[in-house]
């Protein structure tokens, strides 16, 4: 389902600031979220993502800024009057109420007629496949079932905006992977716009249409999961999402179609232009899976886009390796002392050219596969 692009964004957050006793938790955040999107706020704990979510829900009052939902500023609206519902971290299901009554709670507060409440609760229970469990109390359900009740409860009122606070944080790994898909398909079925908070990048990458990476109260980058991963705009994002090798250097040649950057580890030939100036200190970011590694020196055919000069190639010794089954991660210590991470997919069951510890290797990469970070 593609998000509907309206002229006016559905949810507009403008220059939002929140201070707690002089500490700035959310610092001048502005972001526009479209109708039907699943928008993830991703960051480590204390980055302000939860505070931002709580301001959307109405549990925290912004120190400054605006939150405009469907053209209306909701900053002064108390939580119980906002057309927004939240699925809480570890769910906050009412322990004294049955599953049925938990889901009906919000509908009853709206004073809907009894038969309509019943119809909607049944529909919600069916949606999350818990029709048989209406009479149970929350503590009689498994973690995954509780999570679905929480989702049903937050969707029952048909909110304009659904907030998810670490939606899968309380589930174990196996269940989490399955639930991710389930959750996305339910959200898309209902068609609700969704803002989720998570510290788990896999969760954000697999569920969200767009991700905002947050650090120290600010949004550093907003983009689709592949944009965030393949074209990070700063060192923090490159390092935070996945794993990355950073080579610090400076620009020695700046052409529209390529740049050459010198770093202590070697010379980098990059096949795209950058917005920078000659001599500018920059970082060259290369993802571990974009690096090829082998014992022999690579041939020219193997080395595309590196120009003829032996650029984008380093030599080193494998100091550690971690076997994950599907891939192996090598730590290669370069002769300059820097250690880089290289991963290699284990495509064949038996690899004759398997690399061992303490082996001398060549590592190289395609000049199109790197990102130059200027900040």
């Amino acid at each position, binding site marked *: 389902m593609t998000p509907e692009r309206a002229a006016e964004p559905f949810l507009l957050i403008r220059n939002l600031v929140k201070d707690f006793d002089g500490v700035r938790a959310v610092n001048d955040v502005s972001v526009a979220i479209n109708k039907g999107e699943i928008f993830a706020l991703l960051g480590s704990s204390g980055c302000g993502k939860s505070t931002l979510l709580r301001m959307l*829900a109405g*549990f925290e009052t912004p120190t400054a800024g605006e939150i405009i939902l469907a053209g209306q500023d909701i900053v002064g609206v108390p939580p*119980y009057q906002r057309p927004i*519902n*939240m699925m*809480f971290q570890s769910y*906050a299901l009412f322990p*004294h109420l049955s599953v049925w009554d938990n889901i009906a*709670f919000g509908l009853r507060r709206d004073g809907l007629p009894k038969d309509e409440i019943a119809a909607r609760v049944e529909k919600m229970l069916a949606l999350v496949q818990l029709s048989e469990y209406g009479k149970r109390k929350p503590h009689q359900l498994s973690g995954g079932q509780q999570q679905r009740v929480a989702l049903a409860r937050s969707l029952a*009122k048909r909110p304009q905006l659904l907030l998810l606070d670490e939606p899968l944080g309380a589930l174990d790994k196996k269940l989490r992977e399955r639930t991710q898909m389930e959750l996305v398909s339910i959200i898309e079925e209902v068609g609700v716009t969704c803002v989720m908070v998570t510290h788990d990048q896999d969760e954000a990458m697999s569920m969200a249409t767009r991700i905002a990476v947050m650090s120290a109260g600010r949004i550093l980058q907003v983009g689709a999961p592949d944009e965030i991963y393949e074209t990070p705009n700063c060192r923090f994002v490159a390092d935070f999402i996945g794993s990355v090798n950073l080579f610090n250097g400076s620009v020695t040649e700046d052409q529209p179609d390529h740049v050459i950057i010198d770093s202590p580890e070697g010379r980098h030939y990059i096949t795209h232009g950058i917005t920078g100036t000659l001599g500018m200190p920059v970082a060259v970011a290369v993802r571990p899976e974009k690096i090829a590694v082998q014992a022999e020196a690579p041939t020219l055919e193997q080395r595309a886009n590196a120009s003829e000069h032996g650029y984008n190639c380093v030599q080193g010794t494998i100091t550690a390796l971690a076997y994950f089954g599907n891939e192996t991660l090598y730590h290669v210590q370069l002769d300059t002392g820097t250690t880089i991470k290289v991963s290699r997919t284990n495509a064949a069951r038996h690899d004759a050219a398997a690399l061992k510890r303490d082996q001398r290797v060549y590592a190289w990469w395609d000049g199109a596969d790197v990102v130059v970070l200027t900040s």
Partner: protein
Amino acid sequence: MNFFKNFFTGRRFVIAVPSLWLAFAFLVPFLIVLRISFAEADMADPFGTLLTVADGVMTLKVKFSNYLFILQDDLYVLTYLSSLKFAAITTALCLIIGYPFAYFMARAKPAIRPVLLMLVMMPFWTSFLLRIYAWKGILANNGILNNFLLAIGAITEPLQLMNTQFSLIIGMTYAYLPFMILPLYANLVKMDVRFLEAAADLGATPFQAFWRVTVPLSKSGIIAGSMLVFIPSVGEYVIPELLGGPDTLMIGRQLWDEFFTNNDWPLASAVTVVVIMLILVPMAIFNKYKAEQEDNR
């Protein structure tokens, strides 16, 4: 030998200490009271004799007349009912005053909670008797309250506050309030504020959230506090004696009169047994509820 080894295990020993204490301090005295309640009133021997052996015939005389007397005498029935009434009013007032008190304590900043808790418990540092006596000074015809009301011109002659139902209820509520506040506080302070946020998120106004979430979740605290107030209130003797009047019949006072004024120990014992039975009923309800609660966890 083996039997003793198995019997006197550490676990049994640990349980034995409180069991013996309960047996000697509660069960044995109760059995004595129960035995006396079946005896004949006899000034010389208040314990009476139940078992006699004469002419090779063993006679066990169990006299139910004391119980019949209690049930037939309007005074006792009225006194029981009145005791239950005052205890119920006291419990209700303690709940009405104590709940907001405990609620605000539980929602206060963590740093000042111990101070508030201390303030609740502080009255216990002074003798109970003295504190009840102090109410005499406040409520008497020439006491503080009447003098104050006269001074500001709210009344022209002193109100009769002492020795009325009013003074009794004030005294009982005052004395038992901490027993309501403490279990309520212990319950409310543990409550997760996220439940209130969830309620607000789902459209509940603060009042609805309180009524639909906070109150039901504090049910066990309400029951525990109410039991702690109600049970001792029913048998209260000192407060009705000091603050009560002719129209404040309480079973505790009646008991005292039977034992020490009329010296009718068997009747007094029967009165006691009935009081205990009256209190056992709410206790049993409470225990049943507690057991159900534990089942739910």
